[in-house]
């Protein structure tokens, strides 16, 4: 059997910043008038997330998320909304790629300052069963972005 991650690594996964975003999520709620809405579910655990986006030309002017989930999925969503607000579609696509790299254990992504607070989620890469949780919001955002008029 592949040994489970140690007790210390598990504790390290739950950085204070992650728990802070879990308990006090940023940009949680709905927009008065959204240009695109995307819902994403993780059928494995029943968690779900809804992303509402208001576009500004090619970029994201504002966005909100709602739904239920574990600390990893909620913190990832909260941090993502902070990071992508005001960014262009191309910038967001690049960030998404870098975040996926981070989740695959790419060490260069850990040092990538453009990911901001999302780097606190780097420990998730050690927990393959949890990577989906961290990517849930990003996949929802990608769907919403593809619905741009």
């Amino acid at each position, binding site marked *: 059997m592949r040994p489970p991650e140690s*007790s210390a*690594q598990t504790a390290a996964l739950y950085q204070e910043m992650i728990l802070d975003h879990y308990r006090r999520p940023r940009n949680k709620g709905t927009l008065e008038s959204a240009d695109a809405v995307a819902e994403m579910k993780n059928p494995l655990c*029943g968690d779900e997330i809804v992303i509402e986006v208001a576009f500004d030309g090619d970029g994201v002017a504002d966005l909100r998320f709602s739904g239920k989930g574990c600390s*990893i999925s909620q913190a990832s969503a909260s941090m993502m909304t902070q990071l992508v607000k005001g960014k262009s579609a191309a910038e967001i696509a690049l960030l998404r790629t870098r975040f996926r790299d981070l989740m695959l254990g790419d060490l260069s992504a850990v040092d990538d300052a453009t990911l901001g607070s999302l780097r606190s989620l780097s420990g998730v890469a050690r927990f393959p069963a949890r990577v989906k949780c961290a990517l849930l919001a990003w996949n929802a955002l990608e769907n919403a972005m593809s619905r741009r008029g």
Partner: protein
Amino acid sequence: MNRRADFPLLVNNPGLHYLDSAATSQKPRAVLDALRDFYENSYANPHRGAYALSVEATECYHRARLTVARFLGVADPDCLIFTRGTTESLNLVAGSWGRANVAAGDEIVVTALEHHANFVPWQQLALEKGATLRVCELTADGRLDLDCMSGLLGARTKVVAFNHVSNALGTINPVADIVRLVRGKSDAAIVLDGAQSAPHFRVDFDRLGVDFYAFSGHKMLGPMGSGGLIGRRATLEEMPPWQTGGDMIEFVYDDRTTWNVLPHKFEAGTPNAADAVGLAAAVDYLDAIGMDAVLAHERSLMADAEARLQQVEGMRIYGPPVGERSGVISFTLADVHPHDLATILDGEGVCIRAGHHCAQPLMRRLDLSSTARASFYLYNDQSDIDALVAGIMKAKEIFATA
């Protein structure tokens, strides 16, 4: 009772606390040995060859059926159909009996406590036939609401499907009361999902009063891909075949086919004889210990675990009181999400399930997206409860920092 030494995986992983037996059980050495012995000494395609080895394989398969039938209290072993497990068994009933007997305007009753395997096949059958699916609701403490059930039954009810024990909450359902209710108000076929009962206490099919009983071998120490469906002879004989192919036929003409006798009519293709042999070994192992001893051991562990969990602040345990449940403690811990709890417990070597337990209709009614579930079996002991409680305290500690 300390049976840990009989289970190679648990011996090989001394720090492991396996509390997910409601999902699948670990295997005793006796089962692994029986599989190896069959493959090394008796293996050929049953029911085929004229040669001695095939006859030997056929006999092994037949003996396995007799053993499992006896264990589950069915006097007529031909009424035990081997399948891949509960899911396949329930699909067999819905696909064969259901398609032949349910028509537009008929009603099918399931419950809010069902695993998807005893919900979706009936929902899909109802959609296909233009029948109505009715769902029996629960009482506040997670029991089936028999008044609600009574109100759903009538002349149009063709099927009543429910589980013996809920996999999500552990609720033991009052089969005899429900059978009496159903028989008094309808001619419905009663389908019992036994996935969580056969592993944990004595089941006597001939006395249950139901028409079908489905079970999984892998949850009762047997190999993955083993399990079965038990029915009544007259019903099974009337039913059309479910899958067609080799072994299940009698004569095949260009324009028609006649069917083999029970149980072969429902076992198309080369049977999974090896895993049936493994399942029989599992049943022999359980019989040697005695199902009453298995039950007593689990009840004592469950009562102990529940008492200790209830002392944890923020703990909420779902379902009826522990004495009315089997094998399962389903819980949430303050605002620690079950998935986070499972990850933290994994770090302490404790395996639990987190999620909706394939019971989304139930979770929706409980207004939950998931719970954490610790489930127990005969190889668990006090050390598993200690590790579970210690892991939960660790999760509280981690989540207390924010």
